[in-house]
């Protein structure tokens, strides 16, 4: 039997991987993927909680998150494309025009 804590830990690990990924990867596409990873780690958590508490709220929430993730990805990719058109790069470290 896998305990609730294990799910939580897994979720936290995934979440952390996502965050760390955002921080260390330079390619925006990878960063988008890390964001997805973060969202999905939360999904895991929701489902696990929902299952262990016998409360469906969490599972419903997951569906919403799917939708949101999709929308986010769409807009995110669009931005990346637009940016690529202008600068011909998607290196995140190059994005330094606005500062101060």
């Amino acid at each position, binding site marked *: 039997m896998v305990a609730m804590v294990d799910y939580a830990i897994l979720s936290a690990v995934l979440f952390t991987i996502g*965050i760390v990924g*955002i*921080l260390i990867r330079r390619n925006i596409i990878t960063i988008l993927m890390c964001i997805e990873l973060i969202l999905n780690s939360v999904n895991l958590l929701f489902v696990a909680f929902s299952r262990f508490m016998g409360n469906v709220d969490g599972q419903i929430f997951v569906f919403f998150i799917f939708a949101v993730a999709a929308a986010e990805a769409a807009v995110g990719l669009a931005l990346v494309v637009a940016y690529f058109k202008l600068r011909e790069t998607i290196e*995140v*470290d190059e*994005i*330094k*025009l*606005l*500062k*101060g």
Partner: protein
Amino acid sequence: MTGYVWLIPVFPLIGFLINGLFGRKLPKKVVGIVGSGAILLSFLLACVIFFQMNGNPELSEHGVKNILFPWISYGDFNVNFAYLFDRLSGSMTLMVAGVSFLIHVYSIGYMAEEEGYWRYFAYLNLFVFMMLTLVLADNLLLMFVGWEGVGLCSYLLIGFYYTTKVASDAGKKAFIVNRVGDFGFILGMFLIVTLFGSLEFEKIREGIISAGLTPEHTFGVITLATILLFVGATGKSAQIPLYVWLPDAMAGPTPVSALIHAATMVTSGVYMIVKLNFLFQLAPITLLTIAWVGGLTALFAATIGTVQNDIKKVLAYSTVSQLGYMFLALGVGAFIAGFFHILTHAFFKALLFLGSGSVIHAMHHAYHHAGIHDKDPQDIRNMGGLKKYMPKTYWTFLIATLAIAGFPPFAGFFSKDEILWKAFASNHKILWAIGAFAAVLTSFYMFRLVYLTFLGDFRGCKEEEEGLHESPSVMTVPLMALAFLSVVGGWMGFPHIFHLPNLLEHYLEPMVENIGNIHFMHNVSMEWTLMFVSVGLAIVGWLFAKFLYGRKTDAPSKLANTFNYFYTILLNKYYVDEIYFALIVNPVKKIGEFCWLFIDTVIIDGAVNLSASLARCVGKIYSLYQNGAVKVYALTMLGGILILFWIFF
């Protein structure tokens, strides 16, 4: 007429207003007439009131009082704008108005060619207004009005030739040094208000008498108050340490020196103390201080006077010295003698100044005639033998010299001798000796002046000599009037030993009660002895001067060389001005600059600006941090989360 005391000072005020507002457009003649006429009216009115008052025993005891309106009044403090014409102030008023009138008349001639003629008369009239206010004031504060007012006029008149730096410097110096004195005066007034609750002379006097104060009671506050008032007096009456302005004040027109810096204004310190004698008597320490300051000033100034070469400077130091005598008199408790000397001094010193003015006038014309512009018309080394050209001036000047040197029966003899005797009689023998020695010096420098100026041969060139002539009668008549007064002025105060009535003392006796237990010894033979001694001293001074300057010798320069060290010190007036500059004026300026350039600019404003730049600096640092990199942003967020973690767990 006794309801019109206030008109006495107001006449000159009207004169001032007329001349000041419209004088520029009026012809010179009218200006002169208005100026002198206003004073004449005052004088006449003063005479009328004087006699009316004396005719009425009630009035003559308390004086004539005119309350115009309450001036400053709040809480329990009330000062009226009020004039009091009593025996003392009345006598003083007569002298002030009379001498002023003569000098105004004299000025019509003396200033005839000046550009600022109307301005001069306006100032002079304003001066008389202020002086009369000072004299007639019924309370200390109003007296202070006049006190500062005459200072203002003195400032304006010293700086009459304002386009020269010397004159404007001198004017400013006079004002500021006087202010130092006034600082004391104000504080003194505060103490008096605190003690007596009023500044009215009568109230103060009543307060003292009703409280039965005697010198033993009042050691402390009254001593302090009187000392402070005396500080005021040293400023106005040019005593050590504040005498320094008076010699410089000679930069003004000569009649001004005669009126303000000899006859009237400078004596107001003495007058104030006489007026407040009931208070000063309660402070023996103050009196002792006054006596010593006076005595030392008399000697000190006289020594400087012996070597000066500027005719007016000699007279100026002489004035300082004579004022010293007056204070000496006050200090030993001989208030009436002090006052007596005010009067006689006014006559002969005004005469001396006017005479010197006449001489300067002549020299000026002479130089003008010779086409010389850079020669100092006041330097006695360039004069000599003027007797020939200006006999009236010479004779009147000589009378004044005899008076100041203390030759009987001229005015100065009586007053000065009275002072010296009182000093001796009150057991201040050292002070007597100082005074006596100063008398020798006085006689010496005055005769030196006479010899160098009027006798011997003229020391200028031919062209100059041709330009010399006697002054117009508008100038010589006042000289003669004053000469007359210098002769007879002393007769109102014969010493007891003459067995002639001492009018002045008798008249003023009620004003000066002996509440301070001031004791004078009665020793007729001693008094006679000393009188002869002092006459002898005057003769000694004269003979000495005659020996040195009466004929052409190189004795003076030899003497100067022998005592080169002393001579230089004396010639440079003991370097007092330089010392003041080094110790006070320059440090104050330096402090000012330090305050401005360091404390204000660097420290205070620096702190203000620093905080501004600090803020900018913080902003700049932050804006460097916000470097545009997404990763930094994300890390910052994580940092924030960590902070929250730290707070939460």
